[in-house]
């Protein structure tokens, strides 16, 4: 599919999904919401980390910062503006840490992005306790569920569309070159430092905005719940299990794992996570290219 066709398909899916608030029960709508959220997180993670092979664990930091933008500003700003501001905070934070740490690679990068996220979490906890004498914040007059759903839907479509455009652009090509051989890409004229910071910052808009959009679902916000590293881990797992170098892989696996986890987690918490662990190990060992590689293998067998 060409980029144009992919964009058209995304738009068509969006139009169908937009009808959900009129059709689905509250339970199913919240299920759809969590699918959309993880799809957007996984797609935006894979946007940068897929082609470059960087392993960023900063997603929860962007998400948490976005959520705190809402927590701090919802009384004075309209919901839509807070969401936008959350995204921009994500971008700014990513640009800042990107400039400082994108020269590190492999496990170092994973560890420092995780560390920076935790540092932010604990700094916010400390600031809130010391200067505002509060452990968390209550969100009053949250928008209704349909408004939240549409906002998250728009963000998800935006993330997918951005990913499509990046893949088709020189930026995407440069990222692939960086992933394959960064120094070679440099000698062929790519300003790799700028490209990496730009793409990392761009990809952070969505987790930031999603944090701001989803914050109102909590009614009570505290740093530990919105900076939860599990959100970041789950995003990475979904993207990599789906196939981070593909567009559709992270979406499919995000939807699949969100549904599975929503249905099973509450009923059989321990058994579910135990099985998830086993599944994860099996997938990495026997299907390292992600679910997308399975599709491609079948496609080749058919042809």
């Amino acid at each position, binding site marked *: 599919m060409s980029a144009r066709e992919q964009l058209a398909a995304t738009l068509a899916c969006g139009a169908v999904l937009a009808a959900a608030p009129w059709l689905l029960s509250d339970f199913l709508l919240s299920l759809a919401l969590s699918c959309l959220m993880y799809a957007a997180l996984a797609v935006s993670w894979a946007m940068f980390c897929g082609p470059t092979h960087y392993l960023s664990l900063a997603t929860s930091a962007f998400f948490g910062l976005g959520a705190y933008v809402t927590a701090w500003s919802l009384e004075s700003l309209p919901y839509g503006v807070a969401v936008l501001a959350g995204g921009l905070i994500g971008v700014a934070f990513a640009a800042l840490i990107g400039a400082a740490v994108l020269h590190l690679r492999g496990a170092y990068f994973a560890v420092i992005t995780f560390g920076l996220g935790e540092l932010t979490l604990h700094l916010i906890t400390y600031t809130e306790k010391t200067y505002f004498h509060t452990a968390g914040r209550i969100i009053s007059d949250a928008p209704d569920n349909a408004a939240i759903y549409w906002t998250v839907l728009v963000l998800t479509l935006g993330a997918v569309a951005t990913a499509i455009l990046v893949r088709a652009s*020189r930026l995407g*090509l*440069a990222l*692939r*070159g960086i992933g*394959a*051989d960064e*120094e*070679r*890409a*440099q*000698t*062929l*004229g*790519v*300003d*790799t*430092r700028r490209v990496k910071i730009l793409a990392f910052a761009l990809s952070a808009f969505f987790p930031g905005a999603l944090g701001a959009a989803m914050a109102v679902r909590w009614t009570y916000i505290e740093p530990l719940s919105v900076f939860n590293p599990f959100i970041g881990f789950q995003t990475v797992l979904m993207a990599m299990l789906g196939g981070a170098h593909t567009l559709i892989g992270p979406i499919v696996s995000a939807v699949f794992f969100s549904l599975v986890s929503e249905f099973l987690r509450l009923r059989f918490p321990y058994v579910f996570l135990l099985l998830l662990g086993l599944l994860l190990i099996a997938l990495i060992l026997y299907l390292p290219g992600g679910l997308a590689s399975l599709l491609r293998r079948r496609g080749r067998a058919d042809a």
Partner: protein
Amino acid sequence: MPEALLAARAVTVRFGGLVAVDGVDLEARHGELVGLIGPNGAGKTTLFHALSGVLAPDAGRLLVAGEDLTGSAPHVFAAHGVARTFQMPRVFRDMSAEDNVRFALQFAGRTRRHAHDAFDDARTILGFLGLGAASAVAAGALTPARQRLLEIGMALGARPRVLLLDEIAAGLTPAELETCAQLIRRVRDELGVAVIWIEHAVRVLMSHVERVAVLHQGRKIADGDPRAVAKDAAVIEAYLGEEGVGSEGGRERRVA
């Protein structure tokens, strides 16, 4: 005399205590084909790393068309028209041969549009190199010799005015070596670029270049007309125990 397109002035590169390149001066002018030879470990490739910005020199200056680029990142050198190949081919293995060349055209080549018209799209470049039939093949699936050719294609995609070639003919038969040398001369003639060419097949190299510089233990020990350099006492001394200056090109041993 025209201004040098690429000039290294007293360039020094150190690795810890080891001085790999020691105060080397080297120039290449418009349309000039310069050979760079020396025994293994003489610092040839390290000098190329410095000339292309991959390694910042510890001392000395690098001028491209008169502009001082010392300490700049590789992409700045590329943007100023310095393109290179790597001894061990570093093509993007998962991309097709055509996309590899297109990559260069899209980045380094893009800022230098209209630098020259002869090689302006990936297919023409691949065709010129005799890789036309392999354009859709993943670069990693090509033979090492063809990957070296593709390296030249990528360098040409950067629309260079200075071309640095690092052992592109390694492992070729004498006949192929001759074809390769003709290819390089054609590139030089048609594009008017300055070429600096490292090759272990010294005899073939000497018969094609107008000038040759010799490195030994990081220092430049000779620079001038190939026939004069071949008779230079210091050069013969440096090569003693190594391969002889006049030995048969295709059968020379190579240590990676």
